[in-house]
């Protein structure tokens, strides 16, 4: 508080802001405001340039995620989870899928765990790049924004290679992932990381130590360690006050405990500390992804066909004619859209549980059992049916602990899906960060909490 008083007195003379407040003016910022990369409304009460009191209103992007999940089957919620934190959708996918897997009590394959780790970390880098780029742009550093988006574009091309989409990827499945990694993924990832590292290096030289940037960030938006914890803030904001809490380290899931990485922390708790934590985390994420790629079992996909591949129509025709001998073993050529879901790849990345995972397409088209299995999982009233009960599973999202609390009544539809949004607590505490600061400090502080509308309002 000592620093805030200094600012106020600097602007308005000694003792300013201690009166009855009759001179205070009220300013509404948002919901459509240029310097806010999200739609919230801040009703600020100002004493000169200093924010005395702020009331934050959210909900402008409420699109009924939790209600929509109750409408479809368990896998139908996956596309909705993409759009929670739309900057790092892969982490959301896997968080939800893992919560349902916990409820079902099934384990996923080793290769799938590694794939989830690698793609999650790529997603996390995209999120941090966007966060830093956008908040630097709001401070006038448009170059940084262009560089960061350039780097993100390289990663998105990588994501597109794996998932088929750039942004809303719907790649996770209960019990596995949609498809295996493409054959040349490793090389592409290393090439993309090289580019990202160059960009990060450039941005470090542009921002870290830059006088203008430092003046706007150092000592601004401070939240004490005690308040950060009391407001249940996790992720980079918690690590910026010196608490090395990271779900990946505290309750390791997938294969994070087998990899060598660090939890970067800072102690100042201001915007600059958050920036440094995010910059360091991107490097750690790349380390994790690279190690995971080295360790991933199953190796690159070997197309080791016994006999000639045949097209699906011939395959079905032969089946109809009763020529079924050895048919199940013959690989068929699949549409390029299904790349990575061939039988050998499918088995590597999906749990061997017929109650949960759709069979590979060759089996669906080539055998009556496969077809029935497929129908049983798709038909209404059948599908994935976790036993009645409840489960909470947390992953480390880009903004902190991303938890999914799922309740099942034993049917094929979720009874209740609750997302614990990592950016809601910082927004609840935003008024504590900006009260006593100047209006202009609102912009970097709001940038540093990295509010993502889809996740905040759900």
């Amino acid at each position, binding site marked *: 508080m000592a620093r805030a008083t200094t600012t106020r007195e600097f602007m308005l003379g000694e003792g300013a802001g201690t009166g009855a407040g009759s001179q205070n003016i009220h300013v509404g910022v948002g919901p459509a405001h240029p310097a806010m990369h999200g739609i919230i409304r801040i009703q600020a009460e100002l004493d000169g340039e200093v924010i005395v009191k702020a009331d934050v209103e959210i909900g402008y992007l409420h699109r009924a995620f939790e209600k929509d999940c*109750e409408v479809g089957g368990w896998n139908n919620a996956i596309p909705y989870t993409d759009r929670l934190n739309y900057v790092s959708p892969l982490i959301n996918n896997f968080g939800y899928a893992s919560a349902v897997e916990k409820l079902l009590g099934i384990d996923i394959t080793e290769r799938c765990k590694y794939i989830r780790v690698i793609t999650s970390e790529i997603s996390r880098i995209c999120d941090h790049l966007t966060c830093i780029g956008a908040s630097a742009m709001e401070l006038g550093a448009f170059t940084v924004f262009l560089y960061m988006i350039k780097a993100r574009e390289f990663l998105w091309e990588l994501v597109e290679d794996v998932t088929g989409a750039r942004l809303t990827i719907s790649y996770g499945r209960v019990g596995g992932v949609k498809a295996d990694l493409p054959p040349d993924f490793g090389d592409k990832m290393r090439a993309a990381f090289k580019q990202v590292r160059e960009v990060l290096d450039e941005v470090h030289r542009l921002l870290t130590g830059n006088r203008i940037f430092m003046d706007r960030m150092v000592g601004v938006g401070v939240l004490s360690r005690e308040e950060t914890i009391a407001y249940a803030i996790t992720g980079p904001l918690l690590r910026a006050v010196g608490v090395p809490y990271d779900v990946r380290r505290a309750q390791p899931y997938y294969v994070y405990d087998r990899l060598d990485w660090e939890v970067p922390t800072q102690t100042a708790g201001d915007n600059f500390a958050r920036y440094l934590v995010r910059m360091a985390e991107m490097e750690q994420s790349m380390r994790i992804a690279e190690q995971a790629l080295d360790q991933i079992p199953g190796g690159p996909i070997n197309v080791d066909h016994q006999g000639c591949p045949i097209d699906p129509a011939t395959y079905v025709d032969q089946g109809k004619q009763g020529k079924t001998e050895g048919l199940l073993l013959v690989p068929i050529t699949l549409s390029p859209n299904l790349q990575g879901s061939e039988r050998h790849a499918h088995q590597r990345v999906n749990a061997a549980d017929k109650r949960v995972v759709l069979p590979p397409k060759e089996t669906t088209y080539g055998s009556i059992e496969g077809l029935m299995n497929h129908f049983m999982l798709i038909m209404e009233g059948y599908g994935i049916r976790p036993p009645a009960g409840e489960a909470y599973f947390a992953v480390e999202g880009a903004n902190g602990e991303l*938890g999914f609390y799922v309740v099942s*009544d034993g049917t094929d539809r979720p009874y209740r899906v609750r997302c614990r949004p990592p950016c809601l607590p910082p927004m609840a505490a935003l008024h504590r960060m900006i009260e006593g600061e100047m209006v202009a400090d609102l912009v970097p502080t709001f940038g540093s909490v990295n509010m993502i509308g889809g996740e905040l309002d759900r």
Partner: protein
Amino acid sequence: MEGGAILAELQARFGAAVVETHGHRGDHTAVVTREALIEVLGHCRDDARLAFDVLMDLTAVDVSRLPGREDGPRFEVVYHLASLRHNHRLRLKVRVSEDHPVVPTAVPLWPIADWLEREVWDMFGVRFEGHPDLRRLLLYEEFVGHPLRKDYPVNRRQPLIGPRI
């Protein structure tokens, strides 16, 4: 502490106020009575061996269509606690009926409960006694009803402007 030991500790200390416990899928859960809720939450936060310093999540479930639960209390308010110091977790639940959907507020214990309780009020219509400012959080004041209740149709829209479609 191990989850089972936490539950045993709570049962030993609060006796009949702990109605039910389970450890399904490793998530240790205690259902407590409404009267004892604040005392239990306070103990969980302040006891040195428990030290649940973070209220990770606060939400509710409308159990009116859960098989076997149709006739009981309609709402379950769910608290997910976590301890940064000891790295353990606990889920607490309290059941409230539709006729009197009121739970004592946890705002004095954790300030984050402010927004989370507002959200539960918004979505389920469960009130929190003693809450400083119980407004809707996500929806607008003109909205009638509480959408996450099971009897609210998913596409009943209440537009502020424009046609009702």
